[in-house]
C-alpha cells in the first residue's frame, strides 16, 4: 500500500516536473516584488519551484543555465478579472460565452468554459501576464471566477484555483445614459422611482436566494431523510461558510455602499471589483473592514461632466494612501495585454512604481489567496517568471522569456507569426 503511494507520488512528480523544469538564471536583476530589487543575482529553479536566490549558487552539474545579463526577472503578472478564453471576437456571437441565462448560477465555473486555444492567451503572455481570473457574467450571481495559468492543453492544465470567488453583479439604479454609447439604453428606467422599484425587486430576489441557501445549509447539516441535493444551493455553501469570497462588481459610490451593507448583513467575505468612484467615508469603511478592491482601467474619462480630468487616474493612489489592498484588472479578453500599462498609468498620478507593480503581482495573489504559490519570486514559490529587457510596466520593454511552474512558455503570437510571414515575403 505504502509502496503504491510512493510510486503514485513519483508518477505525479514525473508528469508535473521534468528535467526541463530545473535551471539557473544567472547574473540577472531580480525584482522579487516581496522585497527590494537585487542587482546581479541568480535564481535557481528546481522542479518548477524557486529553490534558491543568491549571487553565487551551487547547482548540480549539468544544470541548464540561462544568461540574464542586462535583463530583469519579475514574477509573472496576474490580471484579476478577464474574459480570456470566453470571448474571442466581440461581434461574433458564437465566439462569446461569458454570460449564462438566469439570475442565479452559483454552480457554474467560468474555468470550464475557457477555450485553451484562444488567440488572446498568447498575446497576453507576450506582455508578461502568466495568470488571470476568468470572470463569468450575466444575471445576478453569475458563477464562480477561477484563477488560471495562461497556457495549457486543457482547462485542467491551466487551473490554479478553479473556485477563486463567487461573482455577484450587484444591482444598481442608473438613470444615466449608457456611458459608452452616450445614449439611453432600451433598459434604462424612465424615472428614479422606476429604477428604485426594479432595484428593490432585484435586491429582494438576492436576499431570498441567500435565505434559501441558508435553509439548505441547515437542512443538509440536519441530514433528514427527505434531503435532496440542489446544485445551485450546494454551490453557495463555501460562500456561506466564509471559505469562498464573493467578488462583488459595483461601479459607483451608491452601489459600492449598498454592496458593503449587503455583505455586512449577510456576513460575507467580499472582494469589491470594477469600482470607479469612492468617497472618503467609503474608503475608510473599506479599509476598516479589510475589503480588497479590483480596479478597472485607469485611463478612463471622468464619470460626470464636471469631475476633474484625473478623477479616475488618481483612484489607485487614493486606495494606496488609505492602505487598501488592491489589484488591477482589464475585465476584457483582447485588452489583457494592456494590464502593465494600466498599472503604469497610475504612477504619474501618485502611485509609487513598486506599488503599481505589486498591484499586478503579489497583491493580486494575496487577494485570490494564492500568495503561497505565485505573485513574487521567493524561495518555495512556483517559478512563474518573466525575463524582460527593461521595466516590466514600460511599453517599450520586450519580454524575452517566460516560465510557468518552471516550464518555458512559447511567446509567439498571432501578431509575431504575421510579422514573420510578411517580413519574409520576397520583394
Amino acid at each position: 500500500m505504502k509502496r503504491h503511494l510512493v510510486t503514485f507520488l513519483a508518477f505525479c512528480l514525473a508528469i508535473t516536473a521534468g528535467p526541463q523544469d530545473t535551471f539557473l538564471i544567472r547574473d540577472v536583476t531580480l525584482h522579487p516584488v516581496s522585497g527590494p530589487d537585487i542587482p546581479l543575482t541568480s535564481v535557481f529553479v528546481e522542479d518548477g519551484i524557486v529553490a534558491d536566490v543568491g549571487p553565487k549558487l551551487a547547482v548540480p552539474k549539468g544544470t541548464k543555465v540561462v544568461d540574464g545579463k542586462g535583463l530583469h526577472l519579475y514574477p509573472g503578472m496576474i490580471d484579476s478579472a478577464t474574459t480570456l478564453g470566453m470571448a474571442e471576437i466581440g461581434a461574433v456571437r458564437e465566439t462569446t460565452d461569458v454570460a449564462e441565462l438566469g439570475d442565479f448560477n452559483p454552480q457554474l465555473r467560468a474555468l470550464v468554459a475557457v477555450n485553451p486555444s484562444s488567440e488572446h492567451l498568447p498575446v497576453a503572455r507576450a506582455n508578461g501576464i502568466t495568470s488571470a481570473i476568468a470572470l463569468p457574467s450575466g444575471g445576478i450571481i453569475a458563477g464562480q471566477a477561477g484563477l488560471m495559468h495562461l497556457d495549457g492543453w486543457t482547462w485542467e492544465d491551466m487551473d490554479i484555483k478553479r473556485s477563486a470567488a463567487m461573482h455577484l453583479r450587484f444591482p444598481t439604479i442608473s438613470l444615466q445614459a449608457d456611458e459608452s454609447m452616450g445614449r439611453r439604453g432600451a433598459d434604462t428606467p424612465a424615472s428614479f422611482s422606476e429604477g428604485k422599484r426594479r432595484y428593490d425587486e432585484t435586491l429582494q430576489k438576492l436576499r431570498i436566494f441567500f435565505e434559501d441557501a441558508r435553509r439548505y445549509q441547515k437542512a443538509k447539516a440536519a441530514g433528514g431523510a427527505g434531503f435532496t441535493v440542489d446544485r445551485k444551493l450546494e454551490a453557495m455553501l463555501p460562500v456561506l461558510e466564509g471559505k469562498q469570497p464573493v467578488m462583488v462588481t459595483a461601479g459607483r459610490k451608491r452601489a459600492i455602499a449598498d454592496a458593503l451593507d449587503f455583505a455586512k448583513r449577510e456576513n460575507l467575505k467580499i472582494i469589491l471589483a470594477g469600482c470607479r468612484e469612492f468617497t472618503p467615508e467609503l474608503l475608510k469603511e473599506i479599509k476598516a473592514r479589510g475589503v480588497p478592491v479590483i480596479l478597472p482601467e485607469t485611463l478612463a474619462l471622468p464619470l460626470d461632466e464636471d469631475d476633474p480630468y484625473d478623477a479616475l487616474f488618481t483612484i489607485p493612489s487614493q486606495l494606496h494612501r488609505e492602505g487598501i489592498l488592491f489589484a488591477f484588472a482589464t475585465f476584457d479578453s483582447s485588452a489583457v495585454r494592456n494590464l502593465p500599462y494600466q498599472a503604469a498609468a497610475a504612477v504619474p498620478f501618485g502611485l509609487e512604481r513598486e506599488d503599481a507593480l505589486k498591484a499586478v503581482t503579489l497583491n493580486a495573489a494575496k487577494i485570490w489567496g494564492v500568495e503561497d504559490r505565485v505573485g513574487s519570486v521567493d524561495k518555495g514559490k512556483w517559478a512563474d517568471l518573466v525575463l524582460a529587457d527593461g521595466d516590466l510596466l514600460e511599453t517599450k520593454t520586450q519580454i524575452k522569456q517566460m516560465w510557468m511552474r518552471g516550464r518555458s512558455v512559447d511567446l509567439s503570437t498571432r501578431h509575431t507569426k504575421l510579422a514573420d510571414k510578411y517580413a519574409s515575403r520576397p520583394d
Partner: protein
Amino acid sequence: MRISMIAATLAAAALCSAAGPALPVIAIRNATVHTASGPVLEKSTVVVRNGLIEAVGPSVTAPADAWVLEAPSLHVYPGLTDAMSSWGLPAATPPAAGPGAATAPPPPARGPEDRPSNSSWVRAQDLVNPSDRTVTAARNAGFTTAAVFPTAGIFAGQGALVNLAGEKAGQMTVATPLGQYLSLSPRGFTSFPGSLMGVVAYVRQVYLDADAYRAEKAAYAANPRGARRPAYDRALEGVLESPRLLLPAVWAKELVRMTELAAEFKRPTILYGAHDAARVAPYLAKSGAAVLVSLKWPERARDPDPEADEALRILELRENAPAAPAALAKAGVKFAFYAGGVERPADLRAAVKKAIDAGLDREAAVRALTLSAAEIYGVADHTGSIEPGKIANLTITDGALFQTSTKIKFVLIDGVKYEPAPEAPARQQQEEKR
C-alpha cells in the same frame, strides 16, 4: 338639361362653401388694443367684417350692422401664433412611405443616395385634422394660428401656417409651404447616418443633390429631345419646394454650427430651440438667421436621482434660458416664440412671464407671439397684427396678456368668435389631489 342643372346647383354649393357662410360683423368697443405693428391704442374699437379687420382706432365707431362687444376692461391682441408646433397633426406623424411601411422597419440605408429618414415631400396641411383635440387645446391657450410641421425623420416635411378653427382642413390653411423641418437625430449604428457627423454630411449632400437636380431638370425641360430624362426624386422635390429650412439648435455651439451649415445652402434659415442663444446673440444678428425660441424652458427632471449631481452646463442653461429672448431682442435678431409642447394656458403665461422677468420688453413679447412669426414666414402682409385688411385673428383677454391672473376671454379666428373652455386647475393642485 336636368343633369346640367344639378351640376350648376352643385357648383353653386361648392362656391358657397369655398367663400364660407356669411359672417357677423363684430365690433369690439372701448378696449385696449395691442396692434403689434404700432403703439398700444387705449379706448379703441376694432371692427371685423367678413373675416377681416375692417378698422381699428380710438375714433372708429361701430357700424350699425355690427354685433357690438363692449370691452372697457379687455385687451385685444393679434391672434397668438405658435411659430412651430404640431397642433392638429396626428400624434405620431407617419413617415408617409409606401404600403406596409408602418409594420416593416425601413431597410438599412447604405448612404445618402437611399434618402434615409426623408419625407421632405410631406405637407403639414394634408395632415391637419380640424377635430383633433389639440386644436381646441391651442385655442384655449389663446392661440389662433400655428405654423405646423411634420416632425418625423431628418427631413420631416413641409410646414403650413394654419388657423386653429375650421370644419375642413382646407379652410384652416393660411399659407404653405413654410419650409422644411429638419431634425438631426442619428438612426443608430446599423444604418446610415449613424452619427451626428453622418447626419450633417447627409443633410449637406441632400442640398447639393437638390441643386444639381434642379439644374438637371431645367436643362432637360429646355431641351428634352435627345437627352436622357433625369429620374424623379420625391425627396429632392420636397427640398426644392421648401422656401426655407428649420434647423434644431439649442446650445450656443449648435446655433453657430447650424448657422454655418445653413450658409452653405444659400436658403433662408430658421433655427429652433435657441435656449442658449444669449451667448451668441450678436453673432446671430450678423448672420441674419431667424430664431424660434421654445417656451418649454429647461426643467429639472420630474423624478431625478436624488444623489446625482447635475452638470454645471445644464444648471446654467436652466438659469439662463429665459434671458435668451431679451438678448436676442437687444441684438436685433428676428425671433418668435413657440410653445414647444407647453399646452396649458397658465403654464404658457408663466413661461412668457419668465422671459419678461428676465428682461424682455412686454410689447416685444407680444410681437414674438404674433407679428414676428408672420414676418419670419413671410406672411406679415396679411396676418400677424391688428391693421385694416389683415385676417381677423384676435386674442382677447381680461388683463395684460402675461400676468398670472389674466384669462383668455375669447378669440376670433377668421372673424369667428370662440370662447375657451374653463381653465383646469393648476398642475400643483392637481397633483396634490392625486
